């Protein structure tokens, strides 16, 4: 172990020298890894934002259960109990027709104030239901409708449901694609290191001949791979670090409409940049290790 740390500067020098010697090869490797990670980066940004959209929309989704105006207090309580018992219901709150009207006036302006007088309010007393998950809204609504004393049940409607389902799919496929890009980056690094090593398999044999341990041979190659990976990750990291805040600013923090609120660049982009750099390092480490392992075994 002490030998390892004592040799580390030596191994480091060796790695950087090799990088210089094989500049064309390492540069092209960095570039291809950079492109793979660039795609991963774009997808990660979209996936994170879509997750954010869905979360926002889900939070605002509520089921409105309108009650018959003739119900008395105990009947209302009975209905509330039934609603709470439906599977997937997070909570149920009561809102009287006066409160509903106030909300309407607040949101849509004073035109509705004309209904504020006694006996003119056309609205119903309602229960507002929050669901655990957006995809349960439909089933909850259907069940709520069958309860006696309920006039109407409404929620955002089918369009929003479809949107959420779509987002969910995009998220799943996006994650898969990101994973694929990471594998691709590892594969690219493995291939490049393999090429640089292939040229030097005699050198490795000589190293073993004079008594170099396997790790002594492997470490410079792995360091080399990590540097290649890091350099590659620098490209998408820079693009993301500069581009996303710019995009955020020009779009005023929303995508098309208020419904889609973009993630604010800090701390999101810091995490993303750190993640990309780590990803480059990791891919470099794994890829070069995979490549060199075989050639160390080339000779006993």
């Amino acid at each position, binding site marked *: 172990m002490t*030998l390892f740390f*004592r*040799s580390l500067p*030596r191994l480091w020098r060796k790695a950087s020298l090799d990088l210089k*010697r094989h500049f064309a090869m390492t540069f092209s490797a960095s570039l291809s890894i950079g492109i793979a990670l660039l795609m991963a980066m774009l997808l990660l940004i979209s996936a994170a934002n879509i997750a954010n959209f869905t979360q926002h929309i889900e939070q605002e989704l509520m089921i409105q259960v309108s009650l018959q105006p003739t119900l008395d207090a105990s009947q209302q309580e009975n209905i509330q109990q039934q609603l709470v018992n439906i599977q997937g219901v997070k909570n149920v709150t009561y809102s009287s027709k006066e409160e509903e009207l106030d909300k309407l006036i607040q949101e849509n302006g004073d035109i509705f104030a004309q209904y504020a007088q006694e006996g003119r309010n056309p609205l119903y007393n309602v229960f507002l239901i929050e669901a655990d998950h957006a995809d349960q809204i439909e089933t909850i609504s259907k069940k709520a409708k069958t309860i006696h004393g309920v006039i109407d049940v409404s929620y955002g409607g089918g369009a929003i449901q479809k949107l959420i389902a779509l987002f969910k799919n995009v998220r799943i496929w996006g994650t898969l694609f990101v994973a694929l890009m990471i594998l691709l980056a590892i594969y690219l690094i493995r291939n490049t290191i393999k090429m640089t090593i292939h040229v030097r398999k*005699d*050198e490795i*044999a*000589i*190293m*073993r*001949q*004079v*008594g*170099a*341990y*396997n790790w*002594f041979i492997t470490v410079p190659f792995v360091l080399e791979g990590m540097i290649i990976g890091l350099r590659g990750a620098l490209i998408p990291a820079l693009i993301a670090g500069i581009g996303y805040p710019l995009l955020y600013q020009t779009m005023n923090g929303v995508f098309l409409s208020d419904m889609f609120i973009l993630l604010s660049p800090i701390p999101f982009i810091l995490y993303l940049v750190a993640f990309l750099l780590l990803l480059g390092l990791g891919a470099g480490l794994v890829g070069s290790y995979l490549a060199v392992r075989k050639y160390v*075994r080339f*000779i*006993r």
Partner: protein
Amino acid sequence: MIEFKDVSKAYPNGVHALNHVNLKVEDGEFIYVIGATGSGKSTMIKLLNGEEVSDSGQLIVDGVDVGALKHRKVPAYRRNVGCIFQDYRLLPKLTVYENIAFALEVVGMRKKDIKNRVREILELVDLKDKARSYPDELSGGQQQRVTIGRAIANRPKILIADEPTGNLDPEKSLEIIQLLEKINQNFGTTIVMVTHDKVLVDEFKKRTIILDGGYVIHDSRVGGYRSV
């Protein structure tokens, strides 16, 4: 001490390279191994070097069962066994100094100690003025002396030489054999030298082992071809 105990080795293509070889080499001995091409000389070297593993029998070097070594343990064993090849096997992008220093870096020696040791070795192999040259700037004899320098850098107990004079003219061969003798006498290093060179074997008489078809057919303490 090197001890072959009933060692046999065949290659996947069916060639029986070594057959029931029994051989003992004491510490500090200098022996020749001679024989026609395909007689098993190279296989013997590869077994000693740990590059190949025998099919049956045991090869004990300094108390180590070489065939039983794990892949990752082989390098540590090799630090005790210097190896010299016909084709030198120097790292072309390193200078003479760096090539010898490399064998010492690998074992984690300090830079200062490496400097001293390499200077010592360069003096021994008479290449002090070539320290900064690259292998392709040297003659064959000089390159071979670098290889010898690298092989003895870690003060191995055993030195294996695979036709060290195979690519050299008689005059340079003489230099090499004299250098090996010097190492053998000054440091007590056991030397196993595989060779084709009849002149050398007759001139510098040592214990001579003759291989033929993978069998040891002669083990002469007197030495020289004529003793056969």
